[in-house]
């Protein structure tokens, strides 16, 4: 039972981070129908920039409470990632907006490689530890333990997701985004500046990605130039699982994926009589995805698109 609660809690933490990143994928997909393969790298940059800023402050002799240091660093990392996201769209995607789908996919992959290499140039190939400034005190819940930091991560994720939903549902910008995602041509005719909306989407998604990157780095206590790849892949899987293009779906898919992965890792040994161990954790994400898509080809919350003759 303890293991069960513990794995649920771990899954919730992991899942909220997936959800936050998945939102970035799903927003872009909703607006442009494009997999922004470089989004994982934006997440990575968020983590790297934050660590760099914190280290710089420590080196300069500035010692504030850990939370404040992270917050200050985020004030740098978020705009930096927003700028990065904005630039990615302008340079690699906008010129190809009317090209067939595979062209932007290839530029996205190329860009992903470029960003990783740039990260190596700046931060090297090694794992970078997260500065030991954060409190790792734990809380006991039903016999399972969770750090206060992890609680904070989950809460912050929920707040950010709620904020995003509010923006999309209630503001003028959000309405324009929804209109563009349904029909860019008509939205354009109705006076929506599609370019602005697309840029705004990338900027918002990248901002969330930056925060998620910091969460990943604090949760695992390290960052690495390649970290964006797997987490991006998982988050994208989560977005598809939930029904890509659907914000609620991304959140549900992310949390679900986190919990399934974590439960799977905890129980796979028992389930297979010891044949498969927790090193198969990564299989769950993909196995679940495949099973869900077989039964619901548009994801859990995706619209069922009927074939029109």
């Amino acid at each position, binding site marked *: 039972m303890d293991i069960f609660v513990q794995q649920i809690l771990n899954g919730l933490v992991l899942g909220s981070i997936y959800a936050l990143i998945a939102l970035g994928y799903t927003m872009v997909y909703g607006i442009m129908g494009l997999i922004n393969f470089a989004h994982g790298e934006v997440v990575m940059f968020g983590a790297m920039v934050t660590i760099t800023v914190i280290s710089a402050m420590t080196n300069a002799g500035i010692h504030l409470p850990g939370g404040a240091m992270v917050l200050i660093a985020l004030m740098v990392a978020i705009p930096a990632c927003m700028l990065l996201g904005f630039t990615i769209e302008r340079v690699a995607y906008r010129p190809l907006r009317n090209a067939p789908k595979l062209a932007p996919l290839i530029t996205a992959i190329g860009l992903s*490689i470029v960003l990783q290499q740039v990260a190596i140039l700046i931060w090297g190939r090694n794992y970078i530890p997260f500065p030991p400034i954060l409190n790792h005190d734990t809380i006991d819940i039903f016999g399972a333990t969770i750090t206060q930091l992890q609680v904070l991560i989950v809460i912050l994720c929920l707040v950010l997701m709620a904020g995003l939903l509010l923006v999309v549902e209630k503001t003028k910008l959000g309405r324009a985004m929804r209109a563009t995602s349904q029909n860019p041509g008509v939205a354009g005719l109705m006076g929506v500046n599609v370019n602005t909306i697309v840029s705004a989407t990338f900027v918002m998604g990248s901002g969330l990605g930056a925060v998620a990157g910091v969460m990943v780095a604090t949760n695992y206590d390290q960052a690495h130039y390649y970290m964006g790849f797997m987490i991006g892949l998982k988050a994208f899987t989560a977005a598809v699982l939930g029904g890509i293009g659907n914000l609620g779906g991304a959140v549900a898919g992310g949390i679900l994926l986190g919990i399934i992965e974590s439960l799977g890792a905890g129980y796979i040994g028992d389930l297979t009589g010891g044949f498969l161990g927790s090193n198969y954790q990564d299989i769950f994400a993909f*196995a679940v995805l495949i099973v869900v898509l077989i039964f619901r080809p548009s994801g859990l919350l995706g619209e069922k698109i009927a074939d029109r003759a």
Partner: protein
Amino acid sequence: MTSNKKLGTFLASAIVLAVLPFVVSGTLGNAWVRTIDFALLYVMLALGLNIVVGFAGLLDLGFIAFYAVGAYTFALLGSPHFGIHLPFYITIPLGAGFAALFGILLGTPVLKLKGDYLAIVTLGFGEIVRIFMNNLNAPINITNGPQGINLVDPIQFAGFSLGKVTQIGSFTLNPVHLYYYMFLALTVLVVIMVSRLQHSRIGRAWVAMREDYIAASAMGLNIRNIKLLAFALGALSGGVAGGLFAAFQGFISPESFSLLESIMILAMVVLGGMGHIPGVILGAVVLTIAPEILRDVIGPLQMHTFGRMIVDPENARMLLFGLAMVVMMLTRPEGMWPSKRRQAEFDDAKKG
């Protein structure tokens, strides 16, 4: 083109391809012949993927899994790992068959999926195959895990081995030369296979399905079978290339079958000119050779210009490679050498 001119082109290319490995090993060294051998393997892989992506229009991001199946079949049945040493003319067809079976296995559940959903599922499938290869060393050691399988048998037949230096008269043939001819022969076979498929009833059905699957099914095309056939035949070429890879390299491990490899092969298809066989071949050759040229050039160039290494050559190589992919797609989204039809499509799209 007149048939005389065609024959001339054919003979000229045959001669060039025949003497190429000797010219290269004489001028640039055997390492470059090895690179060319790899280029041929990638041509086979890219042509296989091109069936799925280029002809049938199904985006497959897990293609490397079929390469892996072919390679592991060959290695497990031809190495000291299990002490089994079956000849290549059994293991390569077997590997190709298994790969095709995997293609159908993957294709069946994803029949209803479209576009990016299909892409992510195939990607997941590729990762699952890799994770299993990485971990199937316990409790029963099947794949030997991350260490991979060593001492894989070379291609050998009746006492003659492609893995040994061979003397024919005054000619000394290194393994890289011997494999070159074998790979070349198989590449030619694959080219003939895909081009005949393309210009057949089957090829037309793929294109029809790619363009409008509703209209295609209303014309009586059995979409399910046509899709599965594309997956199976693409996988088949991947499986053959995988077996050859295992024999050539003598060693395989899960590292060779990462997602990045799938992406590279997709990039070869798209950058070359999707659906166009000469374009895909060009894409595979360029993307195999270019990084090696960069490797050879970047280090010495830096030493020469700055007197020291400023940027790690490996780093600079990948950076330039990524940039080239971006720039190439931005300037020529139709690929380096598209078919006339595809070029026209793009021109139409530009006109709006």
